[in-house]
């Protein structure tokens, strides 16, 4: 269900008393409500669902799957995004 797409906060502003942001999705930007993510700021990646940020992407946790694969020795060093490079 629930399409949630990671995007980067490129502007923060207030509108009708709500904390709002412009969020960039790989070259297109759209307004989103940041009210539920009080500590998300410029440059942070947030997951947007129907115009609302519902989480801030934890960059360290985001590498987990690649670290796991590296541990299992199932990934050749080269060419794995997020694996070798931090």
């Amino acid at each position, binding site marked *: *269900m*629930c*399409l949630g*797409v990671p*995007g980067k906060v490129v502007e923060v502003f207030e509108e009708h008393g709500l904390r709002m942001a*412009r969020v*960039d*999705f*790989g*070259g*297109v*930007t*759209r307004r989103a409500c940041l009210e539920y993510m009080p500590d998300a700021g410029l440059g942070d990646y947030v997951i*947007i*669902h*129907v115009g609302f940020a519902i989480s801030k992407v934890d960059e360290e946790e985001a590498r987990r799957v690649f670290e796991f694969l590296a541990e299992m020795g199932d990934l050749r060093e080269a060419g794995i995004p997020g694996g070798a490079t931090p």
Partner: protein
Amino acid sequence: MAVSPEDFTCPVLISDYPNVLLGHGSGGKMTARLIAGLFLPSFANPALAALNDQAVVEWDGTRIAITTDSFVVSPLFFPGGDIGSLAVNGTVNDLAVGGAIPMWIAVAFILEEGLPMADLERIVRSTAAAAEAAGVTLVTGDTKVVDRGKGDGIFITTTGVGIVPAGVSLSADRCRPGDRILLSGPIGVHGVAIMSVREGIEFETEMGSDTAPLTGLTRVMLEAAGGPEGGDGPSTSGGRHAQPSSPSVDRAGIRCMRDPTRGGLSSALNEIAQASGVGMLLDEGAIEVPDAVRGACEMLGLDPLYVANEGVLVAIVAPEAADRVLEAMRSHPLGGRAALIGEVVSEHSGIVALRSAVGGTRVVDMLAGEQLPRIC
């Protein structure tokens, strides 16, 4: 209250629709059903039955291509173009992908009372400029005005006439297993540019529509394809000669071309696969989707394969001609990013399949109606 099976009537049975729905104009399955169920039987003739983007008729030894298209785009002005340039390019491209040289166009304007004269002037200037750029002469036209509220500012219908050079005969029913599928450039650009300014879902992007006349591109492709090994006409298998009277059916290694506008790449390829009774296997990684198109589609839950294009064409080419044609495409400014995206196969006839980025395979079906933004 209980519903017994006899009482049950399917709410969206096409033939039972009491009203026309937007989906009937989406270019997907609903449109196809409307054409097959109402228009084809009513207007039955062989030129129409070929169901190509243009009809080719012969008179006194000359083969003439004819096409017509109506433009109802909203908003009238969008990043990268407007309804005027779109109306010319769309019709020119329907001729060009049939292998024809576009020559003349007719234009009909349906204006809504109250349309600002400045907007009309701007659209007319853009129409004229597009015609000149595409090398066609606008030779006749018509103007009607409807009451305020009965039109969306302006609707434009363009009709184009072109000449099909000797030896060129392209048709969607000529594809065979082993043929290569070539795509001239990145997909989804026009559709996303339009969506970005559409009420309710608007977003910001620097990307403009890719609307452009494809005549130059199709000319270099046809020249490259009509190469040295021409004249193997009799090799056409399966007895499906679209143009029995045309000379050397296979001289050009290009079987058919389409500009995948409304309904996107998937609809164009599904139509061809069904017309030829073949399957297709695409390689997802080879289909270029610009970042902004990806971003917009992820955000709205849409599939780029179903998003409209204007300055892009897809060609089905005989294997021996594929390299030459691809090279010729890449030599042209509109085909600089052309790519081999897949192959025609004998399996799963009428079905277009796609090998995904992670190695699984899926069916790329024709859209049922309009592609709607999803939440989920």
